[in-house]
């Protein structure tokens, strides 16, 4: 599902001070099935942009179009899913109960629900834990559950807001690999906010770097590798070059504005 952001402006007002402009006119075209990493200094507005695309927030200027149609205030496209920073599984539901939730809310026929949820859990490797409660799952397992929940409705657009930030390196890499596989299978469009340059290079076909607020796009690079991206990718010099390049972009972004 393609995303088209043009001239988007967003301001936040706080009680004491002047309104702060967080996004100062962002233009972004994302063709269908592209995996885009959104990068930039902390607090620069990457998450804000993501929320605007999800319809969880409305811009003060400019427009957001998803799948060719403009997004009106608080409208949520049907084929969209959001993965939050924390798993936010509902504690009173079992794992499978959580994964079924979107299907319940969307009104999917009863017969299909459990099968689809179970299938998704198998895909993320949690089928055995399906009757456990979130309190009985580790952080990594909860995030995998959150991914399963996000993908159970077969979204055409997946928005991810630094979902793996709190994990250790190994679990993180495992989950990155999982996302990559799922993306290859289903070819959804993905907007992935992250602080990890390595993660961005591993996962994304394109990295967009934002400046300090008020945020503008300061760099927009394609990330291509010959062949499939597997675990060995991280050993290649081409990988490290890309990471280094992004690092330079980041310095520019930090310094600018």
């Amino acid at each position: 599902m393609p995303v088209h952001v043009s001239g988007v402006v967003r301001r936040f007002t706080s009680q004491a001070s002047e309104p702060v402009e967080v996004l100062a006119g962002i233009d972004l075209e994302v063709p269908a099935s592209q995996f885009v990493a959104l990068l930039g200094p902390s607090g620069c507005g990457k998450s804000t942009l993501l929320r605007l695309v999800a319809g969880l927030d409305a811009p003060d200027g400019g427009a957001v179009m998803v799948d060719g149609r403009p997004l009106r205030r608080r409208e949520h496209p049907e084929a969209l899913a959001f993965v939050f920073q924390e798993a936010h599984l509902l504690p009173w539901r079992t794992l499978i109960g959580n994964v079924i939730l979107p299907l319940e809310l969307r009104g999917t026929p009863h017969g299909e629900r459990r099968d689809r949820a179970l299938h998704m859990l198998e895909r993320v490797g949690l089928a055995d834990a399906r009757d456990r409660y979130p309190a009985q799952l580790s952080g990594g397992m909860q995030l995998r559950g959150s991914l399963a929940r996000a993908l159970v409705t077969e979204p055409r657009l997946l928005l991810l807001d630094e979902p793996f930030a709190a994990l250790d390196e190994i679990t993180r890499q495992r989950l990155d690999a999982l996302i990559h596989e799922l993306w290859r299978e289903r070819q959804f469009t993905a907007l992935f906010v992250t602080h990890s340059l390595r993660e961005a290079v591993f996962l994304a076909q394109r990295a967009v770097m934002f400046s300090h607020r008020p945020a503008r796009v300061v760099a927009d690079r394609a990330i291509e590798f010959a062949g499939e991206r597997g675990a060995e990718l991280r050993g290649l010099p081409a990988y490290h070059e890309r990471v280094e390049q992004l690092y330079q972009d980041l310095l520019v972004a930090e310094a600018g504005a």
Partner: protein
Amino acid sequence: MTARRARDLAGRLAPPLCTAVVGLGLWELWVRWTDPPRFLFCAPSEIVRDAIARAGELAMATWKTTVAVAWGFALSAVVGVAVGVALSSSRLLERALYPYTVILQTVPLVAIAPMLVIWLHAGVQAVSVCAFIVSLFPVITNTLSGIRSIPRPQVELFWLYGARPLAVLTKLKLPGAVPSIMAGLRIAAGLAVIGAVVGEFVAGELGADRGLGIVVVVAAKQGELPMLFAAVALASALGIAMVGAVNAAAYFLMYRWHVSERPD
């Protein structure tokens, strides 16, 4: 029950039981030693003796009060949660109505209760309303705060999937607020008993349908201290039982998933 759980239970019950035994023993000895006038002090043994002698009367009175407490508590649970949910749906509504729920909390029951007798039948009806008035407020506030403390991302999750308001209520707001609501109901349970007994002082029936409150008032008038203490002890026991019932319900609702119900 495993051996370990049995030991746990014993470990938890023994200390307070010992305190009770020692306390009662000292009280008994003091009364026997000083031999005070019977309308001023009495001994635990007299309380037990009179309670047994008039067990039928006390049982009936306890039952009558329990019925009023049950009605009042049930009403405040249902109305309290409903009002809490309603107030949570709109900040405007909350601002418009919340101050009046606070006023409800502060109005003295002994002033309202006589008016209740004018509009309702004395006895169970009026006393239930007394119990209701006194126990309503914590349920409202706790429901409201429970719903408001649901993490925003969970709410947004429901928005994103286009959930209808009823689904949001039954699948998110109510389950999410359960721990808080249970805490409110725990408080309301104890208050309902107090509200019922105090309500009976003024609005209770005097005849065969009397509740514990009237037993207390009449025993005080007659200088029958053992009966007075027995009635008060039964009212306390009722309160403990009510709170215990709420705890049991909370356990069943939450033991699988909530940190508060996990065994230590």
